[in-house]
């Protein structure tokens, strides 16, 4: 009843092709942005921000990056953790070696480092495809793990490669409280997500999708596979790199190479697949699911056990967490293999007809 596009006539191509063609959608997005920028900082507690919201924002950003590569261009990648690490250490090196470099350029330079690394390890995609490529991208992961642990130049000769940043500020404002960190991540996420959405709507996004659907056919109709694949690797690893730098600078503060293990690559891929391949929106859903699930399990399992009258040790909780996490993922893949974004689309379609579906 409320969510209908009747009577909203488009009189120009511009109006017809905007991101949100339906008025109600535009209102909803403005409300969402208002909540995220105004209401949440006022209402949310420090714990909520530090433990859930900031990781959610940063992982959403990374998931958008992974989705461009895996969901839009169809190149399965298990090297996302490495791109995050390169972004983080790249930004760190620029930040520390160039005194006076502001935070935002440092993050962007870190992203550019990740971009070059991504292009380098994207080169095999020109020859190797599918699962072979997925395994080949693991090379990036192990190479990055090794590089930051063993080549001391990258970590300024600190033992075990652990580094720390402090005294972060943007335009003179210190980024130290939970609220300021949250807002900073939110701003960057909003800008990059908008850019990504527009990229995938444009010519280059169409090229990526053509390559994903059938690369030989795409090449036949004049899309350059090399250009399309490498640009997808470049854009994706840039975004993942910025997310990695944010994760290290804003969330961790001090980190070592093992902070970006292969587990991150798997989790990012989970986010994209559970959220929905080929959907920017889905990246957010997936990130929310994967970030919140372990925390929720961690909180509720002891409670639940207490309810039944058993006390379980922390190790048992962590093992049960693993089992439930794995089980839920499998269950989810079985009931909705196209991800949460598909559920969202179905829900919206139902809402359009509600309350008179016939």
């Amino acid at each position, binding site marked *: 009843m409320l969510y209908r596009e009747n009577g909203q006539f488009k009189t120009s191509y511009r109006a017809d092709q905007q991101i949100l063609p339906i008025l109600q959608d535009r209102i909803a997005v403005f409300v969402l942005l208002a909540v995220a920028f105004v209401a949440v900082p006022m209402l949310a507690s420090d714990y909520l921000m530090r433990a859930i919201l900031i990781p959610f924002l940063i992982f959403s950003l990374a998931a958008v990056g992974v989705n461009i590569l*895996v969901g839009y261009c169809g190149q*399965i990648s298990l090297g996302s953790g490495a791109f995050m690490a390169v972004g983080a250490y790249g930004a760190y090196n620029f930040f520390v070696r160039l005194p006076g470099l502001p935070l935002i350029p440092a993050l962007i330079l870190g992203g550019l480092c990740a971009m070059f690394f991504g292009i380098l390890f994207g080169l*095999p995609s020109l*020859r*190797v*495809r*599918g*699962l*072979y490529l*997925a*395994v*080949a991208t*693991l*090379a990036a992961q*192990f*190479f990055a*793990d*090794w590089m930051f*642990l*063993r*080549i001391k130049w990258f970590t300024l000769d600190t033992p075990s490669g652990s580094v720390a940043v402090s005294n972060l500020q943007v335009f003179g404002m210190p980024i130290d409280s939970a609220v300021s960190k949250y807002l900073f991540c939110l701003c960057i996420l909003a800008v990059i997500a908008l850019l990504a959405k527009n990229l995938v709507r444009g010519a280059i996004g169409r090229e990526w999708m053509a390559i994903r659907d*059938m690369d*030989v*056919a795409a090449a*036949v109709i004049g899309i350059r596979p090399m250009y399309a694949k490498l640009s997808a690797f470049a854009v994706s690893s840039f975004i993942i790199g910025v997310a990695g730098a944010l994760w290290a600078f804003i969330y961790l503060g001090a980190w070592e190479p093992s902070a970006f293990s*292969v587990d991150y690559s*798997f989790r990012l*891929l*989970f986010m994209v*697949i559970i959220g929905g*391949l080929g959907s920017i929106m889905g990246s957010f859903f997936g990130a929310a699911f994967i970030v919140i699930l372990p925390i929720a399990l961690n909180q509720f399992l002891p409670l639940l056990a207490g309810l039944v009258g058993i006390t379980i040790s922390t*190790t*048992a909780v962590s*093992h*049960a*967490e*693993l*089992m*439930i*996490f*794995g*089980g*839920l*993922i*499998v269950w989810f*893949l*079985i009931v909705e*293999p196209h991800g949460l974004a598909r559920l969202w689309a179905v829900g919206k379609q139902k809402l359009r007809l509600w309350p008179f579906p016939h």
Partner: protein
Amino acid sequence: MGFFLETLLGGLMVGMLYSLVALGFVLIFKASGVFNFAQGAMVLFAALAMARFAEWIPQWTGIQSLLFANLSAFVLAGALMFVLAWLIERLVLRHLVNQEGATLLMATLGITYFIDGLGQTIFGSNVYKLDIGMPKEPVMAFENVFQGGILINKEDLIAAAIAAALVALLSLFFQKTSTGRALRAVADDHQAAQSIGIPLDRIWFIVWCVAGVAALVAGMIWGSKLGVQFSLTTLALRALPVVILGGLTSVPGAIIGGLIIGVGEKLSEVYLGPYVGGGIEIWFAYVLALVFLLFRPQGLFGEKIIDRV
């Protein structure tokens, strides 16, 4: 010269053990098109089961015989792997027929998390010793051929022999039995196999059982070498370059790929490692596999990929 040969032999033996893990990947991929990331978790699970049963059985039965304990532990752990295979086929794979490769890959990753949690819940998460009576002392060989001879670990020799026997057994099973023929038919073409009356779900169950047994043997050998601990799961990651190097669909590929990766890894670590800071084994294996892939994108022995529009 002796040192070089020693490294080479060490590499070959490690490679043989990699191919044991890789074999599990290849079997399942061939028969069901599932890239089974859970193979590493299955190795850990099987090894944990074996180690713990070997510890518990003397307590339960009161018979203090190492051979009896190990044998019955092996049988029990094998039975457990069969149950696991049945559950995976029944609860997961059956519902995911005809999904994309990436979705199936993710499902096996989910299974990995689940098995990791399950194994440690049932069997505990400490480091366990697994004593299957392998001799530990090294022997000298070729002492009369050149000076100094070379040092060989007896344990490695036996492990390599077991691996080779298992591979031979599997290829016999694949080539000579009717079940093996059915497996190959399914690997060739699901639909065609189904249309001539081969039951797909039973074949998948058998394949996962065989992969489970391969995991058990791998877990047993690695477990007795390194101790049964969580880090055994990373074996799957060490074996992945072997699989893509040899080709995802080829059993001999897994063996030869394993040998190449094992030798490459050891030689690079010894002769290249000191110049770049050491510890290059793991990514060097991947880079080596990548270089081969650049020339043969389907791996050394994989089926040729034919593009149709």
